[in-house]
């Protein structure tokens, strides 16, 4: 299969079930909502080292937020249900609570699993906090030096999907980066999907474990490192000199699939030789995104 002269490998991306929460952060203006969201989602690229994965889903207008102010929607994922509230409490407490003018609301209101995030954060108010029930939901008002920080008492949690991916194999680094950037632009603001890595792009794809160091849980993906083509069981085709990866997390498999479809098509441009995907033989993750099936 070829798109714009780019070979689509007959393979699949293997992804995992994770737990996901959606946060709506609002601010006096879009700048301050974004400032909080950027800090909140910082150092949240991979559960391997960050314990969570997070990213900005999209920006919201005042008509789309609970308090009528501009906002940002953030998706937040962890591998298990226990660590999601832990990460949310720590991160919201250090990044959104601290950010001027912001408020924080639940974006998965229909999810039956509820995480008592605001309820935990309320104690920062040192007994001066107050709650209000509005439309059946409880909100906590925390007194802060600026005025008050408003946070919803509970946040919804549901099963999500982490680790959707595709690899861009290009003739050179410039072409790989241009294709990756085009893919990211095409996937930005799609509902239910985030790209947790810097700029949405990964240059250091990893494999499970290590060939040399016993204590490493992930090491460089040497089959796709062009510099190692001559000395490893390389999967880098001749003519390919740079590989970049796009990793996608989302609220469900259809959202990931829709984003991969758009992103891969955008990445098929001059200088790109092939698009492939990372998997573990289908033995580890329950979600398999077959590239040719998605693009058919």
């Amino acid at each position, binding site marked *: 299969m070829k798109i714009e002269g780019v070979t689509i490998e007959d393979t699949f991306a293997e992804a995992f079930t994770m737990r996901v929460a959606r946060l709506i952060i609002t601010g006096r203006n879009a700048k301050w909502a974004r400032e909080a969201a950027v800090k909140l989602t910082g150092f949240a690229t991979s559960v391997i080292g960050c314990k969570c994965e997070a990213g900005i889903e999209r920006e919201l207008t005042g008509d789309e937020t609970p308090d009528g102010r501009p906002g940002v929607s953030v998706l937040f994922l962890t591998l298990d249900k226990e660590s999601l509230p832990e990460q949310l409490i720590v991160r919201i407490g250090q990044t959104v609570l601290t950010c001027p003018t912001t408020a924080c609301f639940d974006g998965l209101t229909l999810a039956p699993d509820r995480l008592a995030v605001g309820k935990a954060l309320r104690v920062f108010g040192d007994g001066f906090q107050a709650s209000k029930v509005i439309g059946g939901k409880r909100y906590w008002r925390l007194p802060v030096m600026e005025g*008050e920080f408003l946070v919803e008492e509970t946040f919804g949690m549901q099963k999500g999907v982490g680790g959707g991916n595709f690899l861009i194999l290009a003739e050179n680094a410039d072409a790989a980066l241009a294709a990756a950037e085009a893919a990211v632009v095409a996937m930005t603001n799609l509902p239910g999907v985030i790209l947790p890595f810097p700029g949405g792009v990964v240059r250091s794809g990893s494999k499970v474990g290590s060939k040399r160091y016993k204590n490493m849980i992930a090491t460089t993906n040497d089959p796709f490192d062009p510099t190692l083509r001559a000395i490893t069981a390389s999967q880098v085709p001749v003519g390919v000199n740079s590989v970049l990866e796009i990793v996608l997390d989302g609220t469900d498999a259809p959202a990931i699939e829709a984003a991969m479809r758009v992103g891969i098509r955008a990445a098929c441009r001059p200088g790109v030789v092939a698009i492939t995907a990372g998997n573990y033989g289908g033995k580890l993750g329950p979600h398999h995104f077959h590239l040719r099936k998605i693009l058919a």
Partner: protein
Amino acid sequence: MSDAVVLTLATAPTRPLVADCIAADRFTSLGARDIGQLPVTHGGRRARLGDFFTVTGERSATLRIAGDLTKVEGIGAGMAGGDLVVDGSVGRDLGRAMAGGRIDVHGSAGENAGGALPGAARGMTGGEIVIRGGAGAQAGAAARRGLIVVTGDAGPQAGRGMIAGTVLVFGRAAAGAGRFLKRGSIVALGAIDRPATFRYACTYRPPHLPLLFRYLRTRYGLAMGDPQITGRYERYSGDLAELGKGEILQWVAE
């Protein structure tokens, strides 16, 4: 089961009619005949609801009442759920000690709306009361939780002794509003005669008010202006003769 139970006042009471049997959630399991048999008190004498109201519909959590109900007391008392809409003004004790549900009065209400039984420590413990007119004395007195909205003026001592919850007054709040309040909020969009035991804290934009106002606009169609939604409020902490963790939020017209 009907979409709604409708009570229409057929025989106007000549004396106070205590009809605290009227509550939306209580009618969910009652047929029209059973509803008509519910006990009321007219001028201290026992009577039946059907002696005064015609009943249409049955077994519904939505209840509508129509007529001049200014002599009817205790409507929605102890209500725990459902929707009660009143087309007209009502007497005292509207939603007294209610625990849940919504009461929407297209008219005024008498004393003690959302308040407590005589001698009881707590008034309403949940739910919402919207009064599209004025309210008598002690609206929301001793409320433990819940929301009372008065689009007109509120009589003396609104929110007296509140433990928590919110009383929102669009018009003027008469003397003694919030007296002996422990926690809870009185939000005044108009003038308020504030007790001396409340102390000014600051002028700011309480972040929960836009949420509340947008909810009221959406749920009840109340005309909330942007100046009130996005405006600044003076915060007065009190009652300092009590716990002092309550507040009066007074809108600052700019």
